[in-house]
């Protein structure tokens, strides 16, 4: 069973950044389910965007981890609660 423990907190502005990226990533993923290569222009835009958004998403976690020095674990990952701005370490 997964264990979840609070290891830190970000500012509301920082939370907004990752929430927007999170939402955008979800939007792109669900758009990818209906978009085919037939729609070349939009498809290319989507593919590029998915790459960029994924990178920004990872950059955010890297920067925040660097800034706040959160505790980490071998088989764990961090999660954020968008309501409280709290960061949790989730381990398997």
């Amino acid at each position: 069973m997964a264990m979840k423990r609070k290891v830190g907190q970000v500012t509301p502005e920082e939370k907004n950044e990752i929430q927007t990226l999170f939402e955008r990533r979800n939007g792109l993923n669900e758009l990818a389910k209906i978009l085919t290569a037939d729609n070349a222009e939009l498809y290319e835009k989507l593919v590029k965007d998915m790459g960029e958004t994924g990178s920004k998403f990872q950059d955010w976690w890297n920067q925040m981890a660097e800034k706040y020095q959160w505790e980490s674990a071998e088989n764990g990952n961090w999660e954020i609660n968008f309501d409280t701005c709290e960061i949790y370490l989730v381990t398997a």
Partner: protein
Amino acid sequence: MEARNITFIVTKDCQLACKYCYLVGKNEKERMSFDIARRAIDYILDHETAFEEESVVWDFIGGEPFLEIDLINQICDYLKSEMYRRNHHWFNSYRFSFSTNGINYDSEKVQRFIEKNHEHLSIGITIDGTEMKHDLNRVYKGSEKGSYQSVVRNIPLWLKQFSNAATKVTISSADIPYIKESVLHLYSLGIHEVNINCVFEDVWNEGDDRLFEEQLMQLADAIIDGVYYEDYACSFFSENIGKPLDKILENQNWCGAGRMLSVDAAGNFYPCTRFAAYSLRSKKPIIIGNVYDGIDKNKLRPFLSLDRTTQSRQECIDCEVASGCAWCQGENYDAADTNTIYQRATAICKMHKARVRANNYYWNKLYRKLELEGMREEFEANKPKSNDVIC
């Protein structure tokens, strides 16, 4: 986060004929075409500056919206690609929302749609409580057969797919004796959030307030004694209700009509679904535009300038337990002596006061218990949320 609610009235048909349903003009004929939906979407997305809210909730309502799942699927696909193609700010923050009777929730088409759009879905299944309470009102069209069994079989699947799902319960006069057992029944089904409200229409009989108060007191005891308060929420109990309201600082309108937008099968725009003809008993619809000509902003001005005191009687302005006393602008309009949204209907007054008394009892009892157990601080930090969703 501020969100704009945009509602597609995709059909005016429903499998059920609920006895409390405010939709007086339901029918099988008025189904939205994709062309109308597309025109509405194009108009809205073309006018990004007029829809400045950070987020959008694309709401699908009926009748029963899932009767039109093919159309909804087409609309949602169009919405996603258009928001994206236009670089519209809502692509980063949107939801598709449904209030369904749950009957065809497990159908292949609905399930395929859910799988495709899961991260952006908010689906509420309406179940009114125990089988007896549910079937008292929620009966199949053309028969008195209750729909409970058809709905409850889908609850486990729904909760599996949406673990934080909430249900909406509507209380009318005949439902009062079943409130306690119904809420507890919903908890027992695994629904952690029960948003519940009394209808705004003038349906209340002599003595209903006392019965209502008794039911809520019993519910309060059951929630506290059964320690449900830790993980379950019921919107009847809220710490913010039952206080006087400042005439100037707390003068906001309760209802969001005018800040929402509804479109029907004919392509007409309404400030809220409640102003469409099929929702109104005695008044003409308030149409604020259409998908061809756009929105007439002048028709929105009364909605957007409306405040609490201007539409309230002095008794309401001076009321010592005013906070949390809700109103529906559509019902206000429908019940008003003239064609105005500026006359507040007060049929709910005695029910609100009864709710406040029971609510006071609930919090006094709960906090005393938590204090004696040394648990109050922990509870306050982690208490479950409920929404005062009233429409």
